[in-house]
């Protein structure tokens, strides 16, 4: 690892001041330490935020407020999460390993870097790692890359599972920065690659995620997260779907769907949702709606199978959500 200086922040103000002066935040370290060892990330200054009071998870009425430093395992096991939004627990437990879930934080999970192999291969072109160095996935290995939101500069997917559930749940982020606090949808944290895939999120310099707020809704518990992958645990999604249904006498009042593994960011499927409103919650409605997920989708040589797997995963996730006892 390339040497760097490290300071521990004792207050949120401390941390933001350090970040404004050029330090990178480090929390669980499961992405950053790994990438620093690979020299994909080379920060010369880190500010350790683990001592900040952002570890609280609480219910506020039917809403959940999840501190940014709550670990994945603590969030998944929290009784209020299991009671109010079990789909969050489900998505979290489908990700990583016990070791990683014990370290990784909820804020860090959202900001994790892509698992595109070329991002970590320093001798391969990768516009996300090194702007204007080219995209090796474009005509190389692209078997697990995105079909939605891609550009001629980048095909990499966002790897988080729980972000997919949070986007479907209309969760919001609370961030604090040099210019004060702001709140915005989790969905708006992520940028499309366009011509600048190295810019992945919309946080301003120095801004710190403080909490994630999940609004209570009519959905829980009729919500499921389905993850399709190459083995049954400890693997990133090939395609995943969070499906939420509000039903009345077998008819869909409202549906919400987001997918992972298919987009350059967690992908909300609004056209599918609209097509489901007012329809019976049966397989033919699900199949009809799921086909709309393909609008604008573009496959490369290796990931054409996702054009079938994505709608099939959505259908299955909707069935699982409908059939929650």
């Amino acid at each position, binding site marked *: *690892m*390339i*040497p*760097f*200086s*490290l300071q*521990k922040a004792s207050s949120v103000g401390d941390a933001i001041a350090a970040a404004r002066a050029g330090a990178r935040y*480090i929390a*669980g*370290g*499961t992405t950053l*330490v*790994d990438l*620093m*060892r*690979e020299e994909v990330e080379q920060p010369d200054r*880190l500010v*350790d935020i*683990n001592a900040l009071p952002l570890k609280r998870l609480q219910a506020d009425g039917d809403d959940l407020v999840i501190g940014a430093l709550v670990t994945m*395992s603590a969030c998944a096991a929290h009784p209020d999460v299991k009671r109010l939004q079990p789909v969050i627990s489900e998505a979290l437990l489908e990700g*990583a*390993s*016990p*070791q*990683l879930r*014990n*370290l990784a934080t909820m804020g860090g999970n959202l900001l994790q870097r892509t698992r595109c192999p070329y991002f970590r291969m320093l001798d391969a072109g990768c516009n996300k790692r090194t702007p204007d160095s080219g995209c090796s996935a474009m005509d190389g290995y692209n078997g697990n890359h995105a079909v939605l939101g891609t550009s001629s500069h980048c095909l990499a997917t966002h790897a988080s599972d729980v972000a997919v559930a949070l986007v479907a749940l209309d969760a919001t982020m609370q961030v604090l920065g040099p210019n004060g606090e702001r709140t915005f949808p989790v969905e708006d944290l992520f940028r499309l690659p366009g011509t600048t895939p190295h810019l992945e999120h919309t946080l301003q310099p120095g801004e710190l995620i403080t909490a994630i707020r999940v609004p209570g809704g009519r959905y829980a518990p009729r919500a499921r997260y389905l993850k399709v992958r190459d083995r049954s*645990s*400890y693997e990133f999604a090939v395609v995943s779907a969070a499906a939420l249904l509000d039903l009345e006498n077998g008819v869909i009042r409202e549906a919400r769907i987001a997918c992972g593994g298919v987009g350059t960011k967690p992908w909300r499927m609004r056209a599918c949702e609209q097509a489901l409103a007012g329809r019976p919650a049966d397989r033919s409605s699900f199949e009809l709606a799921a086909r709309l997920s393909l609008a604008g989708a573009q496959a490369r040589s290796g990931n054409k199978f996702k054009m079938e797997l994505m709608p099939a995963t959505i259908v299955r996730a909707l069935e699982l959500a409908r059939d929650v006892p």
Partner: protein
Amino acid sequence: MAKHHVTTTVNGDPVEYLCESEQTLLDCLRDELDLVGAKEGCSSGDCGACSVLLDGRLVCSCLVLGVEAEGRSVETIEGMAQGDELHPLQRKFLEHAALQCGICTPGILVAAKALLAKNPDPTETQVRYWLAGNLCRCTGYDKIVRAVMDAAAEMRGA
């Protein structure tokens, strides 16, 4: 750059060490404290050979900076046996021949201990999912899973 002075507890003993920012907890255990039971496998959090308990929670010590151990409690494989008396998990690993090359073994034992602390009566599926973050390239896992199940039964007094 100036070294960090870290005061921590390892296997119940108070310990101090000096480390650079870029030294991981695994580096500190092995290179500063001569506790070489935790192994460096992948160094990227994938293989679990470096597993230790940090404040009772199972983590990959290769992803934790050494300075993060300040004021915490670390438990490693070296603290598992009580003197000459092996932990039941260690004994059962020997009885079942649940290891071959042994590189993954310390991490798996620490991980299994963490599982049994929170779930004394796991199903085989629970054992397999819990150990998903500990890779073994020799055994095919079957003997490992059987050893953990057997140790759990013995520890429950079954």
